[in-house]
Structure formats: structure tokens, C-alpha cells
């Protein structure tokens, strides 16, 4: 088990290293540099600035410095925001994106499991059809449409009630998070509902379920301790990639609800060619996602005793 975790972590580190290299090469392929956008500056000032950011050194040396600094957890200073370090940007805005993402995954998982179970239990009935129709809708409608409609519905509700049930935008308290997280998780919730339903339906015909029925176990007991426990595994497997899609998909929802998350900084940095911020955020996000997937894989091994992770499909 330990050696498996070690191997996975090592592979993850190598992946992050490659992500860093890819980002660095991509950034240096872009013509122009972050100092270009500023107003006309004298040669001396430019040379000084280049020295400050290390742009005067040859590219291979810049690369080595960048990798070494990054290994020590230092992502450098932003080009466009006066003397603000990338670490500072990450530490003040990533928690917002992360909380939103975790809450969204939580909503998605809970909703997916509940709706999927209902659909499977009431298979063929009208409520199953309604749920499956909503699932297809949830997969097919972009999250910014849900965000806009949700905001509109909320503002109408607030107006009708005469007081603010939930704020329609911004960030700060828990009530600010509810609607954006729900909207962000909706697509994943739809997918998980479908997954949960088909996985439950597959299990229904297994022998051990029939045995349990024959023994006279109450249906609820069968459902919870036999069907649900087995059917939930694919859902857990999917949560790793889901975290990936949700945190990056958060850009859009963050922009609709005016949430000061990390996504906004990334888009802004790309537009302004802010080298350090782009590289820092990409590597940070990449590392986050890689290790998230590894963590989910390890947890998966713990949840399902039938899978021995050390022999897993690493």
C-alpha cells in the first residue's frame, strides 16, 4: 500500500514537472513580453525591469531558475500587479475557488446519488422519466445559462418575498455560496444521476440481491446495505475527474456571480501576458488536479475492499 502511494506520488510529481515545462515553453513561444504593454519606457528602465524579473538571462537559465524556485514553492512576482507575489494571489483567492468547488462537488454527489436512486427504484414510472429528462437537460445546458437563469429566478424571488432570501452575487457569507455552488455542480449532478441509476439497475439482477430478498430482508435494508453500497463505487471513481472539471469550469460561474476566485485572475493574466501569474496558476492548478485524482484513487482502494490498490491499474 505504502509503496503504491509512493509510486503514485512520484508519477504525480513527474507529471507536474512536465506541466511546468509545457507551460514555460508555451509562454516563451508567444511573441512579445509582459513589459511590452506598458507605456513607452527608456532603455535603462527596461533593462532594469528585465533584470528585476530575470528576463535578461538566456532562456535555458530562466527555465532552470523557474523550476528551482517552483520546487521551493516560490512562483515569483506578478508583472502587472505592483510587487504582488503569485503565492499571495493564490493564497488569497484559491480558497474561494476551492470552497466553491468542494461545495459544488458535494451538491453534485448528494443530488446525483439521491436522484439516481429514486430513478432506479421507480424505474419506468413517470418520476423516473421526469428525472431522466432533467438529466439530459442538465448535461446539455451550459452552466452559464443555469447561472443566468438562477440569478434571474433568485432576484424575482427576492422581489416577491420583499426581503433578500439569498444574495444574487458577490462573496462573503455562506449564503453567497449556495446558488453558485448549486449551478456549478448541476452538470456533474446530472451525469452522476445517470451513472448511479445505471449502476443500481445493473446490480438489481445479481444473485445476492435475490438471496437477500429470499431471506426476507426488508426492501429498505436490501437497498441500503446491499444495493447502494455496491452501486456507489462508480460514482466515487468519477469524483476525482469531477473535481477537475468543476474547479476549472468554475471560471464561468465565478464571472457570472462576480466571485473573486482564482479563475478571474487566470483569464486576466492571460490577456495581459503576465508570465509569472500564468505559469504559477497553471502549475498550481495542474498539481492540484493531479494530486486530487491520486487522492481519490487511494480513497477508492480504502472504500472498496475488493480492490487491492497495490496491484491496481496504476
Amino acid at each position: 500500500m505504502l509503496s503504491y502511494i509512493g509510486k503514485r506520488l512520484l508519477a504525480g510529481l513527474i507529471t507536474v514537472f512536465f506541466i511546468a515545462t509545457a507551460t514555460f515553453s508555451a509562454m516563451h513561444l508567444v511573441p512579445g513580453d509582459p513589459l511590452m504593454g506598458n507605456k513607452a519606457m527608456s532603455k535603462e528602465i527596461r533593462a532594469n525591469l528585465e533584470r528585476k524579473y530575470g528576463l535578461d538571462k538566456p532562456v535555458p537559465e530562466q527555465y532552470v531558475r523557474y523550476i528551482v524556485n517552483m520546487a521551493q514553492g516560490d512562483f515569483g512576482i506578478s508583472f502587472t500587479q505592483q510587487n504582488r507575489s503569485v503565492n499571495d494571489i493564490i493564497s488569497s483567492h484559491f480558497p474561494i475557488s476551492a470552497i466553491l468547488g468542494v461545495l459544488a462537488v458535494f451538491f453534485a454527489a448528494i443530488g446525483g446519488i439521491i436522484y439516481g436512486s429514486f430513478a432506479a427504484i421507480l424505474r419506468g414510472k413517470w418520476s423516473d422519466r421526469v428525472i431522466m429528462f432533467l438529466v439530459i437537460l442538465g448535461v446539455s445546458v451550459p452552466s452559464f445559462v443555469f447561472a443566468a437563469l438562477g440569478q434571474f429566478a433568485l432576484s424575482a424571488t427576492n422581489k416577491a418575498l420583499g426581503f433578500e432570501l439569498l444574495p444574487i452575487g458577490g462573496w462573503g457569507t455562506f449564503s453567497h455560496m449556495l446558488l453558485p455552488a448549486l449551478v456549478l455542480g448541476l452538470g456533474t449532478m446530472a451525469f452522476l444521476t445517470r451513472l448511479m441509476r445505471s449502476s443500481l439497475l445493473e446490480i438489481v439482477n445479481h444473485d445476492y440481491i435475490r438471496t437477500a430478498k429470499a431471506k426476507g430482508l426488508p426492501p429498505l435494508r436490501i437497498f441500503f446495505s446491499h444495493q447502494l453500497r455496491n452501486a456507489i463505487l462508480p460514482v466515487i471513481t468519477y469524483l476525482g475527474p469531477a473535481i477537475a472539471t468543476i474547479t476549472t469550469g468554475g471560471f464561468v460561474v465565478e464571472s457570472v456571480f462576480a466571485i473573486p476566485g482564482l479563475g478571474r485572475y487566470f483569464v486576466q493574466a492571460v490577456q495581459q501576458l503576465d508570465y509569472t501569474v500564468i505559469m504559477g496558476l497553471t502549475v498550481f492548478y495542474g498539481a492540484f488536479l493531479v494530486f486530487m485524482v491520486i487522492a481519490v484513487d487511494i480513497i477508492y482502494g480504502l472504500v472498496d475492499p475488493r480492490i487491492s490498490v497495490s496491484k491496481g491499474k496504476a
Partner: protein
Amino acid sequence: MTTLNTSFNPSSQEEQNRLRTMNPSAQTPSYFDSPEHARAAAQGLSSDDFAPVARDSVAVGLSRPSLSYWKDAWRRLKKNRQAIVSLWIVVGLVLFTLAGPFFWTADPSQQTLGRISEGPSLSKKAILVQADLSEWKPMFAEGVPATPETPVPALDLGAPQNFKLLSEPSTVAVRLSWDAVPGATGYKVYRGPYEPEAGSLGLPIVTVEGGNVISAQDAFELKPGPLHYAVVALRDQEESPRFAKLAVQIPEAISLTAALKLDPKAEAGKVLELPLRPLGSDYLGRDLLARLMSGARVSLFIGFVAPMLSLLLGVMVGGISGYFGGKTDAWIMRFTDFVLALPFLLFMILFKVVFGASAGENGIGPMLLAMVALSWTGPARLTRGQILQLRESEFVQASRLLGAKPLYLIVRHLLPNTLGVILVSLTFAIPSAIFTEAFLSFIGMGVVPPTPSWGSMCNDGIQTFLTHPHEFIFPAILISITVLAFNLLGDGLRDALDPKMRSVS
């Protein structure tokens, strides 16, 4: 037993021989070296004894015409109502995109500032106003000084008398005049949807300097319908509490210069049918239907071409990897895993910037390149897995034993058998490409502004969602319907083409 002999084909004989030479220890009972056979040959049977026995039963014949794989798949797809409806929707969308512009010839980039954010409507008429209205010269009262000699405090200033319209009001301009108020240094005109009352006169529209200026023109975002104007006299920016009011009914109008572009025979005072805007107009007065068509071209182009290119690349890489195996396979798969680990949207944005550095482009090319560079991995893994599986299957081995060359094997046996799975993955890749384009354009990292795409139209529309929802709703509905149709079609195709992968339902 004798009939069995004729049914043996050379390849299976070869296979038998190969097996025997490869594995001499295995005692495979072979028909050819059995003692029975030897005895029969020794007894000197004539060749007539080996003639095939005539068929005595009609049951052996096929009762139905044989169905090829694709025919069977099509038959199954036709049974799936959802998939067929989706197929028609897709056909309709393609027609809307390709043939639409021939039927609906409005220019998607033509801005009409007089018709900003118009809602959907069937027809709209407008009166033509005179061309000289575009030149506005204020009127001056004769014998009244601009700055009065005897100052009158603002509180004592009277309401302007004879507040009236100077010319026919229209959405192009409303011109007002009034009589000079003795002792005033200027006037202020208000406008509002309700009858003005003291304290709430409406929106201040014009402030004129000089007690002798007795007219004003309002040409600020006029909409057809009833409006109320009010005018007060000023004394050094201080307003008099007394005002004059006027209710005006404003008809839709168009200036002669603009009308001449639509109809060369336009004359002032006549009523002109304005160009139809069935779905309304956007925040720059551009025809929404024409923009949706033109945006569909961008969105569907990316939606079709990006998955196909990544499929092509992916199938090639996966095919090479799977067919050659060994070290090549290991390295290619290592690289695939790495590309798969990249955070998609982040690198999409990054690559888009890297590939699309040159200015003045519409941003479609870079987006395609970025999408292909990041999404070839799915088809590659799929193809590799399929080919690895098929490579060892009996019919491929048989073909190889018959001396088939690798290229023939790949083209004749391996690819056709992976085609079904690949087609299914293509139908699922199309909606996700459309989604990606919409997301990127929505956050402003997709197509470059004057080029419309459904995503960028949503981005423009969401700014005015509360006041003019149609600008957001229409492109959003189109994206959703397209993605929905492709998803359902993909489900149907998967069920039809690959019974093994059939979803539980």
C-alpha cells in the same frame, strides 16, 4: 464425414499444420492422419464417393436477406425515436446554418443604432422624417438678453409659457420650444414616462445656457410611446420651482438619410416598412436572426471540425501504438497519459493565446488547433484498445496467415471494426467541442468580437439579461438544443452500433 472434407478451407488447414508444428506434444486428433482416412484411401474408393451430398432440407437456406453490420445498425437506430428526432434536429441545424443565409439575407454585422435591443416582433413601420432634422439650430428670442440686467432670484422665476413642440415628434428627435422667462439665465428640460410633479420631473435631458435660448432638441435614446416633458427656468444653475409640462406621443421614425439606404425612393413624411427583425436585435442594433445563423457557422464549424481533426490524429496515433505495440506503444501511451493530465480549460486558454498571437484574426484557427492538441488523446486510447483486442482475434490471425500485409490488415479488418466505436465517440465529442467553444467565448477567450458565435452572443446578451432577455435566451437555447440533439443521437448510435456497450434502460 466425407462432406466435412469439402467444407475445410485452406486457411484452417494451414492453421492446423502450424499448430502441429508449433506444439508437437499436443495430441490434436487430426482428420488427415487418422487411421480411418488411411484405410479409405487404401480401399480405392472412386472420386464419386466424395461428391457432396445433395441438400435435402430447405431449412438450411437463409429465410431472410443477410444484413450487413451497418444495415443492422441503421435498422436499430430507426427504432429509437429519440435518436431519429435528434437526427432531424441536427439536419435542421445544418440547413439553418448553410441554407439559412440564402433565405434570410440580412447582414449580421450591420449596426442600426436606432434599433438597439429591440425585442422579437413581426413587422414594424416607421414614418420618414425630414432630412433637415439632423441639423439642429437653437432658436433665440428676440429682444431678450442672454444674461438679464435685473437679476431675479430663482425662487421668483415664473414657469415658461407656451411650451410646445417645434415639429412632429419622432424617435429620431423631439424638438421643443417655449417663451423666454424674464430674468432667467438658462433653461432645463426634463423627460419621463409619468406626468411630472414638483420634485419629480423626470430625467434631465438638456440644459441650455442663456435666457434668450428658447428651444431644445431631445435625441437621446427615444423609444416609441407616450412621454412627458417638463421645462424650468434657471438662475445661475438654480432651478425655479415652477415648471411647464407637455405630453407627447412618439411614433417610430427613421431619418431620411437612413431610409434612403433601405429604399432609394423614400420621401419625407411617408410611412416605410422597416426591415423585419423576427428575433429582435442586439445591443448594437444588429439583426439577431442573421447573427444566430452566422454564429452557428462558427459554433458548428468548430463543433464538427475540431472533433474530426482530433479523431484523425487520435486514430492515427492509437493505430500505430496498438498495431506495433512494444516500446513504441509504451512511449506513445506515456505521452498520452501526460497530455490527459493537463488541466483542459487552462491549457485551452494558454494554447489559444500561443497559437493565436497574430492580431486581426477571428480566433477560430487558434481555437481549433488548441482543441485538437488537447483532445486527440481520447480517440487515441480508444483506437489503441480496440486494435490491441482485434489484433489477436481469430479472423485477423487467419487473414495474416493467408499472407495479408499490415496495411491491408489495418484498412480491411482493423479500422472497419473500430469504426463503430469511433463514430460513437465522435458524436459525443461534437457537443463537448461546442460546449468548450461556448465556454471560452463566454469568458472572452474564444472568437474575437466582431465574429459572432453562440458563446460570444451569450456573453453579450447576459449583460442586458434583465432588461432584454431575448439577446441571451436565443443563443442559449440554440446551444442547448444542439448539444441535446447530439447527446441523444450519440446515445442512439451507441445502442445501435455497439450492442455490448448498450446502456441499461
